[in-house]
């Protein structure tokens, strides 16, 4: 089963600007300007991999998750950005 893990929290400096949040990723030196649901998503992820169902369930406490496919697309974007590791 595919699992998703976030990079260690200490690697990310986060500054909320308005609707956007600026993330500085220490391991890469790259700045990401992100909007909801990315900060929420990073909040519910852990350094140990979680399955898609578990992530959706945790996120449901914050806002409505319409479908898991859309969630997977968002997660894969974070994988490409290097902030999330897929296992």
């Amino acid at each position: 089963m595919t699992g998703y893990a976030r990079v260690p929290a200490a690697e990310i400096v986060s500054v909320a600007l308005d609707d956007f949040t600026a993330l500085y990723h220490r391991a890469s030196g790259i700045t990401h300007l992100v909007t909801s649901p990315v900060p929420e998503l990073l909040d519910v992820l852990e350094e140990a991999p979680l399955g898609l169902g578990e992530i959706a369930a945790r996120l449901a406490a914050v806002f409505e998750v319409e479908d898991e496919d859309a969630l997977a697309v968002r997660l894969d974007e974070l994988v490409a950005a290097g902030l999330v590791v897929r296992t």
Partner: protein
Amino acid sequence: MTMMVAGPAVRHSFAVRIGPVGFRVGSDWRTPIAALETLYADYPAPADDVPDFSVRLFARRPWRRFVRPAVMIGGDYVLPEAAPLPLAQGLLAAEMGMNLQMALGQRRYLLLHASAVERDGRALLMTGMSGAGKSTLAALLGRRGWRLMGDEFALIDPETGLVHAFPRLVSLKNAAIGVVERAIPDARFGPLMRATPKGDIRHLVPAAEAIARMEEPARPALILFPRYGFEPAERPVAPSEVFVRLTQASTNYTALGEPGFAALTRLVETLPARAIDYPDAESAIAQVERLWAAL
């Protein structure tokens, strides 16, 4: 020291300090150096006589010193695609070379492509697209109760958050030349260079106070995004938009890493930001004074 160096020595050279940054310019020709000596006459030498950056103006082939002389721009940091300029524009080549060193090599300060003026120890930053009038506004404000800190680059110290002055020669382009010549008739100007790659260019020597006090940093207090050629208008700019615009206005944000991020987010979180549209310089100055008074 070891001898046997092929090739001629650097023929003419000049050294100067602008704000906290020292430069030396070496040239195959005398004329650009003579122009720099005249226009930067009141500036100090680099700290400890060791410049931060070197610029070289050179002929691509030895005979091109004399035949249709074309000035190549080199230095510590270079862009391979930088095209040569005719010798009559040698001063522009020197200025472009110095700007290039800052844009590519500056690592001590977060470099913002912005003009800056100061009053009462607090700084106003103005940034925008080319042609937005930030140089013209800075030059005019610099003669009306403000201290000119720079028309091209604002240097933010990541450790203190202060802006450092970089009052190089003010580069006036096209219509701005006439506007400033009429507004400040007693100012010192460089030669008028027509039909350069950037249009007509004329350099303005900053006011004596701007040079004398160039070592004084200031606390940033307001950031403006001016836009020339529109009816007067102003709007607040959201922090995320300020953040994006400033990263785009910085050539070394990425290279600085975390200190750059910290300096930039600090500016965004602490500075009020306004976009202003203006039809002419007088209208812009009135807008600036009103916004400043309301701080």
